[in-house]
Structures are given as C-alpha cells and as structure tokens.
C-alpha cells in the first residue's frame, strides 16, 4: 500500500490550521499541524514532511521566512509553500516570484491569503512527485 503524503501545516491562526487540516485529510493526506515556528521546529525533529505549508507572519513578522529556511536546511528536498496575508497587513506585495527572490525567500511557492483549498491541493500535487 502506498504511504500517505505527509503535509506539515504551520500557522498561528488556529482556525485556518484546523480548516486546512480537515480539507486535506478529506483528500487523503496525512496532516500534521503546528501553531507557530517554535512548535514546527519540535515537529521537524522527529518528522520529515513530504511538503510544508507555512504562514509568513506568526510569532514575528518574518517567522515564516526563517522557518522556511530552516526546513530547507534540514530537508533540502521538502517543498515549501508560503501562505501570507502580508499584502493587506503591510502593503508589501510578493505576487510573482522571480528567480532572484526565490533565492532569498526559501519557498517554492508563495500564496496570498485567502487561499482556496483547491489552489493548495493543485500546488501540492505539482510539488510532490
């Protein structure tokens, strides 16, 4: 039997976390959730996720960047999707990622909240081979 794809979901918004967990589980994924960067670090000690979905603004405004960097350092082949409401909060926009930006933002994809579940599912399928 095929092993289920494990998704690590990290967000400080408990509601978003639960909702995406239910949605992804309904699609047959194994979902591990972590409320913030610190909790995610704990989880990562004992788990190599097949993909991680990380919120940008958590404990600090750049916690997601840092975590994304840490995941890539520990598991270079784990894709990271960054999800952010940063546009409406600060006016900074990361709409499309250039190669240059990809270099310093250690994420494979950046989505702006609100994110539709279908969008996430499509991207997970594309990134996890």
């Amino acid at each position, binding site marked *: 039997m095929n092993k289920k794809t494990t998704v690590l979901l990290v967000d400080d*918004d*408990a*509601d978003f976390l*639960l*909702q995406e967990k239910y949605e992804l589980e309904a699609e047959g994924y194994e979902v591990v959730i972590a409320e913030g960067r*610190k909790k995610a670090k704990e989880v990562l000690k004992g788990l190599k996720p097949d993909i991680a979905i990380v919120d940008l603004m958590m404990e600090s405004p750049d916690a997601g960047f840092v975590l994304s960097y840490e995941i890539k350092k520990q598991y270079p082949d784990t894709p990271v999707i960054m999800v952010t409401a940063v546009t*409406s909060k600060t006016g900074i926009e990361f709409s499309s990622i250039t190669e240059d930006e990809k270099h310093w933002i250690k994420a494979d994809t950046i989505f702006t909240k*609100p994110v539709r579940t279908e969008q996430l599912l499509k991207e997970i399928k594309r990134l996890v081979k």
Partner: protein
Amino acid sequence: MKLTSEERLKVIIVDDEEGMCLGAKRIVRDFVVEVNDLGIKVSFDVKYVTRGKEYLDLLEKEKFDITLIDYKLPDCSGLDILEKITKKGYDMIPIMITAYATFEAAVQATKLGAHDFIAKPFTPDELRSSLRKATVHLLLARHARKSEEEKRKLRFQFISILSHELKAPLAAIEGYLNILQKRYETISKEDYDMMLGRSLVRLEGMRKLIFDLLDVTRIESGDKKRNFEEINIEDMAKSSVEMANFEAAKRNIKIELNIKTPVKMHADKGEIEIILNNLITNAVKYNKENGRVDIVLEKNDNKIRIAVSDTGIGLEKEDISRLFEEFVRIKNEHTIGILGSGLGLSTIKKLAKLYGGEVTVQSVVGEGSTFTVELSS
C-alpha cells in the same frame, strides 16, 4: 512654549540696486525670529539676484521660503514676477519692495499674492518687522498643513487595520461553514461540534470588536452626551468583578477587590465602566491558570487610583511602548489563541485623558503586570 527646535529659512532678494541688496542681506543674515507658538527659533540664509529672469531661472532649481521683490526691475515688472510665482503655487511668501509707495501699487501687489509691502527707503526695523510677520505666517501655515496630513494618515491607517480585523473572523467562519456544507465523512461529529463552537467564538470576537469600536467613535467624535453624576466606583468595580468571575472561574483565577478608601467621584458612569471592565477582563484573559487578580481602589487629594494586578504572562519592555496604540496586540507564543480587539487599552488611555489622568503599566515577564489608571475627580 520653550524653544525646542531651530530652523533655517531661505530668503532671496530680487532687486537691481546691489547696494540695497547687500545692506538688506546683512540685516536678514543676523536676524533671528522666535516663533513661540511652535517653539521654533528661526534664522535665515540670504541670496540676492538683480534681474527678474535670473530669479525665475533660479526658482526652477532651488527652493526659497521668502522672496523680497522689487517693484521695478530692469528686465520686467515685479508684479509680473509676482503673478507668475503665485500661479505656480510655490510654498513661499512674497514681499513687495518699491520706491513708489502708492496705494494702488500696494493693492495690486496684494491682489497678485504679495504677503506684505515695504517702501523704499526702509529702515532695518521695517525690514525685520515684515520678515517676522512673514516667517510666523509661513511656519504656522506649514504646521497646520502637516497636522492635517497626519490626521488623515492616522484615519486611513485606522480604517485599513479595522478592515483587516473584521476580515479575519469572517474568513475563519466562512472556512468552517464551507467544511460543514461539504459534510465530509472523514470528520467526526465531535469535530463538527468543535467547528460550530469555534465559529461562535469568532463571532463573539467580532461582536466585541464592533462594540469596542463604538466606544472609540463615541469618545472621539465627542457626540455622545456625557452624563455626569456622583458615582460610587466600589459598587461598579464589584459588578465588573462579578462579570469577569465567570471566565475567571473556568481557569481557577481568584479576583480580589481591595478598597483602601471610599472612592466616589463625579463622572460619566459608562466611561468608568469601560475602564474597569477592560482592565479586569484583560487581567483575567492574560493570566495563568490558578492565577490571581488584585484590584486596588483609593482616593488621595482628589486623585483616584485604580490599580489592577495580575499574575499572568507579563510584558516585554519593547512591547510596553506600543501597547496603548490602537489595534496593537502583542503576538507571542503566550498570546496565541487569546481573543481581543486591540482597542481596549487605547480606549482606556483616551478616557483617562478626558479625566485629566493617565494610565501606566508595570510588568515583569512571566510574573505579571499592574495597570494603574489615575483620574482627577
């Protein structure tokens, strides 16, 4: 007001009589104007040109604050220049100088935008007096524009944060409803119950935000009729404690009310209620399980002190400075999951100010905080 800052204004003289220019330059260079209303001490940098065209060319490259223009220039009339620069709308004050001190010339110059009018030959004092008037006028006008601009920015910021704060719970509730609508079989009945519960909690948070917002707008607009009466703060504190006890009991937090002196004051009951409720619910919300809340009420020399201490998470020093700003909520691992509008403390601050008082905080991280509101009765 104490003179707290210094500013240099740039003055340009446009006159074909070089001797006059040099004389005026010397007077202006050594002159100092004190704008007491703004606490600014102003001194001047001076330049002069002898032709109208030269002046207009210079204006393209350089900014000046005050121009002294001769009525009669070799290459054009001072009035023509006045008309041109008024049209361009420079943030600059023009003063007309002329040898022909006629009433008509003065009227015409004023019509074309001259702020003042001095007749040649003028004494150093006449020049200084005109320059002083122009300086005060210029700085006050700039100050008024700046504070208007700041107010607009703050309003805009308030609205944009508010929209975000209202959007967040809506998105959460919408997300749960979407899942509920799909009726996934992978989800248990307990989980569905939990989702309904969370939706209600987020709705409650939204309601609280809207109520806090109404408090803010009522205080800010000044529309609300303030209803002053003799109130007994002890009784009000008791009912605030009773309300907070419901949440406190769930986490075994004890609330103690310590009344040191009888505390009566002439105040608007609704306003004092907002202060007490916000302080006490905060002390419960940010507390630890089995914690304590101590409320001290006292009155000394017409000063009323309400101090609310908790044994909660405490505050980092750098967070305290922004704590009383609107919508500021301290985000860290301890505050995740605690609902709040971020308006309570800013409202308390505004109210305390209305009573000639203030709100202060003392805090130790991990041990707790004490918020003290002082009011003049």
